[in-house]
């Protein structure tokens, strides 16, 4: 039962991290208000897509080739990573002046194009995690008997409530820390998440041999920090930590951070 709770919480938090940060930002900036509709639209579309993806995973996955599935998952991760970086960059660039620019009509088209990218980002973030939750719950509920069902439903609800509690804490923190600090912290969180998506996506390509690993694995730090459980697993899911990284993926990760930092520096000017 605690598995239901934990998995619902974990899968929801990863999606809510993206949704929560964007929500706090859109709320805090008057010019961001029009974007809220796209945000919730993305959540709704993501939930709907979750159901469809879950059916695909349960039904079609056995017919689709292994490589095909890997390409699909890699594609989703890489697109989401690119969208996060683009969003962070855009916020840095237009954050302060967005309201004025919108009023003078200068940023209207830019803003609208970006609300659609925000919609897509939220849809992918929710669908990615949501589909797994659906598969997990579907199977668990299907096998539950009588009294168990109530327990599972309760555990699922508690897990979801815990996820929203985490979401609420995030919103609360935006009220207690200065806007500037909140912005800095969430930028780093989002970039860590984007880096993790990048690592995950590229590793899928390495595992099917599309991308060479070069030196694979480059080292093994699983004795120091194991990535298959506990803190290491958390860091693996949210920040892209790997105990046994491939050289090519590590290089891509370094390029990602160098490019992101220089891009943000340029945007701040």
């Amino acid at each position, binding site marked *: 039962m605690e*598995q239901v709770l934990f*998995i619902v919480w974990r899968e929801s938090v990863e999606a809510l991290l993206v949704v929560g940060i964007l929500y706090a930002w859109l709320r805090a900036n008057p010019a961001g208000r029009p974007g809220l509709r796209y945000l919730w639209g993305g959540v709704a579309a993501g939930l709907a897509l979750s159901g469809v993806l879950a059916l695909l*995973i*349960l039904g079609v*996955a*056995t*017919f*689709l*080739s*292994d490589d*095909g*599935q890997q390409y699909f*998952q890699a594609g989703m991760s890489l697109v989401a990573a690119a969208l996060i970086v683009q969003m962070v960059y855009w916020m840095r660039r237009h954050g302060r002046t967005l309201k004025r620019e919108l009023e003078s009509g200068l940023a209207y088209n830019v803003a609208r194009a970006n609300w659609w990218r925000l919609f897509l980002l939220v849809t992918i973030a929710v669908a990615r995690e949501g589909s*797994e939750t659906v*598969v*997990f719950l*579907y*199977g*668990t509920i*299907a*096998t539950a008997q009588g009294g168990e069902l109530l327990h599972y439903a309760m555990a699922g609800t508690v897990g979801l409530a815990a996820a929203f509690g985490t979401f609420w804490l995030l919103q609360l923190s935006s009220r207690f820390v200065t806007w500037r600090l909140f912005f800095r912290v969430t930028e780093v969180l989002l970039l860590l998440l984007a880096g993790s998506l990048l690592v995950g996506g590229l*590793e*899928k390509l*390495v*595992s*099917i*041999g599309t991308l060479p690993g070069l030196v*694979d*694995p480059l080292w*093994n730090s*699983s004795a120091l920090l*194991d*990535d*298959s*459980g506990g803190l290491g*697993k958390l860091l*693996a899911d949210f920040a892209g930590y*790997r*105990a*046994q990284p491939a050289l090519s993926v590590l290089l891509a990760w370094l390029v990602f951070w160098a490019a992101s930092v220089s891009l943000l520096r340029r945007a701040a000017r």
Partner: protein
Amino acid sequence: MARSGALAAVLLLSAVGARAADMPVFKITIRDGTISPTRIEAPAGTRFKLEITNAGKSPAEFESISLRKEKVLGPGVTSFVVVNPTSPAQHVYFDDFHPQAKGVLVIK
């Protein structure tokens, strides 16, 4: 349309099957929070196949971070992943929906 889709899937499957036929196969069974075997030894430098069966009543997610494999399996589903040649190493695999179910794949 549906028929041609099914045909394509069958052709694709048999193509994959033909290519995979000469690979060593290791079978893994997941059953509602247990995974067996808990230790597999494979030779380094050869492609091999992990055939994973979910014999339980609840869904499972076969996962190995260091092998870079993730596969969601509904109850009663059998699927496989192909592992490309790697150097000697130890890889932990587990059921991400029941994280206490763990095993280790030793490549040597």
